[in-house]
């Protein structure tokens, strides 16, 4: 099947009512030495929209996320967040964006409270606001009892919660979540989803990547599928299913990333082996 033609059709028939473009990605290219990780992708995330970025491992999702958060510069193309060009002023972008990485990267020899104090100091959050937000988020994620322990001694899930809280402390205007729900227990994952819906209602823009397609389907207003550094399809979950003639987002994903046949043959081989 010709995925490129699908993408074109889907983009033209987008059902989502457009608002102001808060995150605008135009012909984004990223090269790492001789390897081209992103081959000119373009998309827009609007006010109060949750945009899901799906794709197999190594497709370029995390690279896109890191560029949007101002962590790495683009090689070519333009990324504008709330009117600020990421390449020209990454620090200003970092001020308004909350970035939560796939694997929590934290100072393991600090306690969560010390880490929140550090992040709050660097971001210049007033003490009253910081205390109020930490208290609210810590309670929501149920990590009160771990606040005085070294981060390195906490479980992966609890570290992920610390990472999420740190990413939300400054009440960001836009959120970049790179598979941030992975590793959370069901209760926390639910809280996270509710939080994201709340942020959406407040008009914040959210770019969200996950491998849990049911979550993407339930949460995202629009979904972009990245494959080999290219955005091969984009639309609402319903549009994607309709145009790919599939009933579930999982099947759409496998079909568009040309993995359906491969998965079937691998499963057959495994069954034969055992």
């Amino acid at each position, binding site marked *: 099947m010709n995925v490129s033609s699908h993408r074109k059709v889907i983009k033209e028939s987008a059902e989502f009512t457009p608002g102001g473009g808060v995150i605008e990605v135009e012909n984004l290219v990223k090269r790492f030495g001789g390897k081209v990780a992103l081959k000119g992708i373009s998309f827009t995330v609007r006010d109060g929209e949750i945009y899901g970025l799906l794709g197999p491992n190594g497709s370029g999702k995390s690279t896109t996320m890191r560029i949007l*958060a101002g*962590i790495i510069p683009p090689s070519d193309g333009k990324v504008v967040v709330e009117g600020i060009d990421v390449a020209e002023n*990454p*620090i*200003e972008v*970092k*001020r308004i964006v909350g*970035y939560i*990485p796939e694997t929590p*990267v*934290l*100072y*393991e*020899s*600090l*306690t969560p*409270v*010390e880490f*929140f*104090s*550090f*992040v*709050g*100091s*660097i*971001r*210049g*959050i007033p*003490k009253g606001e*910081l*205390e109020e937000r*930490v208290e609210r988020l810590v309670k929501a994620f149920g990590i*009160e009892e771990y*606040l*005085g*322990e*070294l981060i*390195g*001694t906490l479980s992966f899930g609890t570290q992920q919660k610390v990472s999420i809280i740190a*990413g939300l402390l400054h009440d960001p205007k836009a959120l970049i979540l790179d598979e941030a729900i992975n590793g959370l227990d069901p209760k926390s994952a639910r809280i996270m989803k509710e939080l994201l819906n709340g942020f959406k209602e407040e008009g914040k823009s959210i770019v969200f990547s996950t491998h849990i397609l049911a979550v993407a389907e339930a949460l995202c207003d629009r979904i972009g599928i990245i494959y080999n550094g290219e955005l091969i399809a984009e639309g609402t979950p319903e549009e994607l299913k309709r145009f790919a003639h599939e009933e579930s987002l999982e099947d759409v994903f496998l079909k568009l990333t040309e993995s359906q046949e491969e998965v079937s043959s691998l499963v057959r081989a495994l069954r034969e082996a055992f």
Partner: protein
Amino acid sequence: MEWEIVNVLYREMTYKRLRANPQLSTDWNKFIKAFKRSGSLKRTLLSQSILFGIFGLMLFPGVYYVKDPSGSAVIYASYCLLPLIMALYGTAVTAQYAISLGLFEPLLSLPVRVGGKYLSALLLITELPSTLFLLPPAVALSLKLGPVAGVLGFAWALMGAFIGHTLGLLIYDRFGKASGGKFSGLKTAFKAFGILLVMSLFYGLNYLQRYVASHYETLKGVFERYSVAYPFSVSTVEKPLLSLGLLAVYGLVIGAVYVLTVRRLWRRISEGTATERRGGRARLSLHSPALALALKDFKIATRNTSLLTGLLMPVVVIIPSLAGALKSGSEGSALGFVLAVGWTSAIAIDAVLKIDGRAFEVLHSLPLSLRTFLRGKLVTMTTVPITAGLLAVMGLSLRNPGSLKVLPLALFLPVATAGTTLTVFYWGIREVALPQTTWKKMLLALLANGIIIGGTAGLWYVEWFLSLPFVLLVDVLLLWHLSR
């Protein structure tokens, strides 16, 4: 098979240690080169053995050139304290490090009964080359008292390392929880003292050598009286049967403690790095970004022995010049000490840049400018040398109040040298990043600091009060550069 497991553990430990070094982890080629160089256990053991063997040559004359043969045994016995201290400290510190790296996690799901033996073997093997330090003096002992005494002497050195290793494991098993807890401040102070003690071993050794050589006749009586206790027992090498008997008793007792400890140790490894509450809920505290960075650095360093070692290094390096200043009491020697403090402030750059480790990514995601980052690192780099310098100069002033003239220099010179080093290393870099430590940059930093130190000294000798405005001018220029 057992050797293979230890070899794999060593490679993994080296790999993780190198990956945690930000200067290597950001440059794959450099990393691979470093890993190839130090990832081979056999190669490391060989090079370290040669190095320690050569280092031990300086102990040879101390034993060989004593007229009284009994004196040689006494002097050699005093050296035997070293393998014990080194193995004890090395084991206690590295055990915690190795376990915190998760080296033993893959073994936990395998049918291994006493996995603690692998930790012990890993540490023992890496500590053994340091015992070769005592090989040259053992050779000297055999030349003075015969080959049996030499062999017994070296066997006692190995026994010392084994005692130290066993005690180290015992200490780790009993107290080796993650940093923090009720007495974390006290533990940190103890750890810092321990690091200074080990790092000052070289100076201590020189002193010990001179002291024992000039007092061995008095010490001989003490050694004979307490010949059952290590390291006094080493002086029994003159009486081979007694010495052998004592060695056997030590082997049995320490061996039994060792076996019991290693068995208990596996339980600790299985439970993972112990979680220790830091007691009570700490309060959120906000600071300026640069100060917050420095405070974060100090918190991390005080909970990580190797980083603390790097930060305290300037204190150790200035010990000889402080001793010289104390002895002479002159203003010139006080100035010499302050200049040494200035020099050594620059060397903390390595430790300071290593502090963030893998978590450097955190800084990338925060709205942190390079200037703020550098100001924070400047505070981290200079706090220890400035504190040590000010305290030492005040101490020196008790002997000669004129030393107080150098007090402002003790405050401002480290800022100038550390700031210059940071500026050179970050020249041409625009964002928060880790600089490449090239030879060119190192030479430039050395040269720039040489000019600052030389200028300060030169102006002092023209007219002492001229040196301060010079240093202040450098500080102002640097701070202006870091504030733009």
